[in-house]
């Protein structure tokens, strides 16, 4: 259902980041960061707390304008774009702390996230034109299909705040996918989940990666999740890239071991 044309994405990287830096006052949160993500990849970004991982995602999704460097989505530079514009280019994300619209039904959460291709405005909504009806039907249908494949159908009219934590995570991922992304950024999707839910999450992410034509880039603290899912991993510390490679290479990389020394997660 969510199939998108694979034609032009075949050769151009979905995301290309060149010498990206972000400074907050005197603090360099991200320092000369580079990455190239190809279509269909499932990549990981790890590093100790405060390493600058979330900041990288905030930069890529347009939430911050970088101090230096360039971000290309599907070959197009995103400099100066507001986040909704970047999202409409095909980058969706979830948040480290779940940010659902808690007083809107699950169904509405998924419908509103389709604003980028709503295709009608205020006047159409008031006169309930043909275009309005057609587009609303399309948006509702997309949302419905998404709820069904994510097995969230029974929560359709519930408020997200009344759902179990794991389901909220799942809903947030479903909401991100409703923007039809080429690249899905997951910021610590396993945070706060129990070990049973983590296993479900691994299965879910693998399933999304197969079913939806989407590249996934995830930040994760649970090493087992990253090691199991990602084919390629990048490690940053104090904003700088200290290692990258396959899970096996990363596991035994001396710099990584040093960076994580004392961290219980590895």
């Amino acid at each position, binding site marked *: 259902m969510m199939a998108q044309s694979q034609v032009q994405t075949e050769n151009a990287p979905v995301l290309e980041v060149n010498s990206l830096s972000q400074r907050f006052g005197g603090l360099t949160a991200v320092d000369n960061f580079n990455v190239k993500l190809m279509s269909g990849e499932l990549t990981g970004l790890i590093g100790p707390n405060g390493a600058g991982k979330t900041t990288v995602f905030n930069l890529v999704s347009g939430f911050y304008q970088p101090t230096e460097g360039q971000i290309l989505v599907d070959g197009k530079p995103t400099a100066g774009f507001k986040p909704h514009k970047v999202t409409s280019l095909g980058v969706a994300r979830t948040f480290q702390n779940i940010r659902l619209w808690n007083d*809107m039904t699950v169904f509405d959460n998924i419908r509103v996230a389709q*604003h980028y291709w709503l295709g009608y405005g205020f006047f159409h909504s008031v006169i309930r034109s043909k275009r309005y009806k057609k587009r609303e039907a399309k948006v509702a249908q997309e949302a419905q299909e998404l709820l069904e494949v994510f097995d969230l159908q029974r929560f359709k009219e519930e408020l997200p705040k009344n759902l179990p934590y794991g389901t909220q995570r799942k809903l947030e991922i479903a909401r991100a996918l409703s923007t039809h992304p080429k690249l899905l950024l997951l910021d610590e999707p396993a945070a706060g989940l129990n070990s049973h839910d983590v296993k479900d999450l691994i299965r879910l992410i693998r399933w999304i990666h197969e079913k939806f034509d989407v590249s996934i880039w995830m930040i994760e603290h649970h090493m087992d999740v990253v090691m199991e899912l990602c084919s390629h991993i990048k490690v940053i510390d104090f904003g700088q890239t200290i290692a990258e490679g396959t899970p096996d290479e990363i596991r035994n990389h001396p710099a990584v071991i040093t960076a994580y020394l004392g961290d219980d997660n590895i």
Partner: protein
Amino acid sequence: MKKYSLNILLVVFAIGLLFAAHFRIIDSYIQIVFMTIGINIMMSTSLNLVNGNMGEFTCGHAAFMCIGAYISSILSVFCFGSKFGDPLLPAASVLIVFPIIVLIGGAVAAVSSLLVSVPSFKTRDDYLAIISIAVNYMIISAIENMDFIGGSRGFQGMKDTVWAMIDIFDGPWMLFWVINFTIFTVWVIRRFISSTYGKGVNAICQDEVAAEIMSVNTNKIKIINFMVAAGLAGCAGGLYSHIIGYVNPQSFNILKSTEALVMVYLGGMGSLSGAVISAIIFTGLLEVLRSQAIIDGLLSPVTMMFPDWEPSAGVIKWVMIPLLLVIVMQFRPEGIMGNRELGDVFPKLKKFYRFK
């Protein structure tokens, strides 16, 4: 058919009201009360879009009512009055032109809302509240200093337009227009806010960052939402000025804005039906408090202790309104309806209306 019964009831009520007014079954005082209810519904439901649905805090809504009132009054006098020379339009066209004049007043008010919506890109909460108060003052002062439209003395001559209508047919025209515009207001808001497009407003309220990241163009939605709210308040102003036949900048000062705020918080933030209900209750209450006899009765224990004090209804109104707000905030901060609609509170009602 059943799902339209509330709408039919509404139409029957409106027609009944017009007949009663036409055949003098209800006197002009009662008519004024009904028209004030209509205008207050327009003010509270439109402010509710910003303060309720979008969760911003603005307290200068009367500024937009003021702009609508002045623009439509000036146009009205130009078109049908004799103040600025001969009327521009034949009196026979008044029934078509008048609603257009009111809508133009609303449109100008809508554009002027940029004064608040653009700052709202970057500011929220207290800061935006201050900006909105400043805008309220700015607009009033600007008009007070425009001598060609009367300045602080006010502006009149709109009754000519109403007389032109009465010349065509001797009926309760202003009541007719107020009913129509009130229904129009609720209808526009209801449709806007229940569409996926309009739900972007609620998304901004609940989590603006998530809204922007999930492809909602938050700045644009803010502009549109402010414009709709200000535009409808502007229409309310246009009607108000034609009912009274006279406008004065000070009728739209911060006290007027406060009335709108009280209605929104009384009704429940984000609840359209709450805003309608509270406008009705609020207007009724004010009318009751306007009676000197009731004021004297209510305050008799106090006046017995201080026999020199003679409370006037005008003063007591401004004790009662804030007091009402304090009581509501203390005991039912979510307002009469919370953020629910009538249909959520009484699910059975849903069978009887389809107000979309």
